[in-house]
């Protein structure tokens, strides 16, 4: 069973071919990074996987299940969580609330029970909070636990976004430019976390990234994308030296 597979994935926006016949595979417990110049279609692929967009052609298969037509809100329940390039956090809620929302896919309680706040609901709430606290510990977010997201600095927001995705207990984690906007120390922290996410938690990571140092530190395999098409695939070193990749980044 292949863990995750994209087959001939394509999407067109009007006349623009944002993603053209992209096929790749992700093996379980590996860290696969997609690199490419801006506008190559990397985030579009993520949006296709989390079903924000529907592909014009192609298939997405996750653990032998065809997820190409699954409604967007079912994706988290299947075990796929993501972060967003530009922080799609819930601004007017606390960090804790954001993390608890990450757990929404694991909700077991119903509307009526919640309105009456039956003991089962209380127990479920405690369990959710326990898992959320565990992630707060993992990501060192204790200071910001009850702070409104709106008032937090950018670096912390990125971490909260990561925490929210982890709260969903995914088996496949999509990270969209996790280090963009972070300084060197914060990027190093991110590298350690990604490493731990894979090794200690057994989560497969599919990542879009520009920072080549980070890519080299954590990735098992790299795919290079340009103009919506895959131009190279292999280890980080091989791909970085690949002539097509050099051409795409430097031109000429």
């Amino acid at each position, binding site marked *: 069973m292949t863990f995750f597979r994209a087959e001939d994935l394509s999407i067109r926006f009007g006349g623009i071919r944002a993603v053209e016949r992209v096929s790749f595979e992700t093996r379980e417990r590996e860290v696969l990074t997609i690199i490419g110049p801006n506008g190559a279609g990397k985030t579009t692929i993520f949006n296709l996987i989390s079903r924000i967009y529907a592909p014009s052609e192609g298939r997405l298969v996750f653990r032998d299940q065809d997820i190409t037509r699954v409604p967007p809100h079912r994706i988290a329940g299947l075990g796929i*969580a993501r972060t967003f390039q530009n922080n799609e956090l819930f601004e007017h*809620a606390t960090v804790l*609330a954001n993390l608890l929302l990450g757990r929404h896919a694991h909700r077991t309680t119903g*509307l009526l029970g919640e309105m009456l706040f039956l003991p089962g*609901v209380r127990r479920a709430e*405690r369990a959710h909070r326990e898992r959320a606290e565990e992630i707060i510990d993992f990501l060192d977010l204790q200071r910001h636990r009850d702070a409104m997201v709106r008032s937090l600095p950018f670096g912390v927001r990125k971490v909260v976004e990561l925490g929210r995705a982890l709260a969903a207990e995914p088996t496949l984690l999509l990270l969209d430019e996790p280090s963009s906007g972070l300084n060197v120390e914060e990027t190093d922290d991110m590298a350690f976390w990604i490493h731990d996410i894979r090794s200690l938690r057994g989560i497969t990571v599919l990542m879009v990234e520009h920072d080549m140092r980070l890519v080299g530190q954590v990735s098992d395999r790299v795919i290079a994308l340009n103009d919506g098409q895959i131009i190279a695939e292999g280890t980080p070193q091989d791909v970085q030296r690949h002539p097509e990749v050099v051409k795409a980044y430097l031109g000429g």
Partner: protein
Amino acid sequence: MRVIFKTDYDQDLRLFRHGGAVLWYAVLGAALLLAPWAVGEYWLSQLAFVCVYGMAGIGLMLLSGYAGQISLGHAAFFAAGAYTETLLLTHGWPFPLTLLAAGLLAGAVGVAIGLPALRLSGIYLAIATLAFAFIVEEILARWESVTNGNNGLSVPVARIGPIAFDPSGRLFYYLALAAVVLLMLGAINLLRSPTGRAFVAVRDSEIAAQSMGVNLAWYKTVAFGVSAAFTGVAGAFYAHKLQFISPEAFTLVLSIELLVMVVVGGLGSLHGAIYGAAFIIVLPEAIGVAKDHLPASIAGQPGLKSLVFGLVVIGFMLFEPLGIYGRWRKIQLYFQLFPLYRRATFRRQRSYLRTERLR
């Protein structure tokens, strides 16, 4: 500032954050229970109105404040509850059952209105709710066989067995008080569980909400349904208070009044609903009192109440957008931090127009 050291998950879940809060709410509760002996019949009646508007406010707050779905047509749910209660009582249904039915029917109307909402957001949704309210008002006026059209219906007095709940009496007041407390508890429970968080997610970022597994259609529908049901119960009580209902009691003006109520009260907290309800009832009284001290030329003007109403709304939006509850929190913080309170604590960063056209 009181710092609460948390050692237990239940501390986050509790209704009252700390012992002091329990004390204050107990005092409030005692005051409300003893009210019939402290205030005259007129003010008792007004307090009952505050409870009624408070119920509707809680409903609207859940929908607009927490789920972010702006509703300009809440009068329609009010009317649905009021008419259901009146018609069922007139046909001999027992009283407590009619209340439940009023809530459920209004909830159904809410779900019906919420269905188009699934694809709409922001101003489109507000306008759709506005249109629905107009249509409901017209239906009430035209469906004469059932609603007696513009001639209206008289509302029978509620009874349980031999006990009659005279709308201006003590028992009715206690009933309304119990209802608003129960609905408030229901709302608080909803907000500290996954559904309430899902509401906030729908409001703040639909795309992220979906990625976390929140079914937008379901939660928007639930928000409309629950909000409408609460407002429907309020409408049933309202019918009893007015003793006579007609479509003219449920116009756009009422919808706007409800909306102003939650906004002035403080959008985004249930306290705001209650403060807003108090504001709506107290304002005409205050104007009445002020009239005695104003020259006859101003006091005699028919538009005075509207004018003050409009000015208060504008004033709050300009100077205190967080509403009455927001101002109360700031005052609380001032005293708690004294003398270290800084006036810029709540100042927001200047922001350029962040478009809401793309969601």
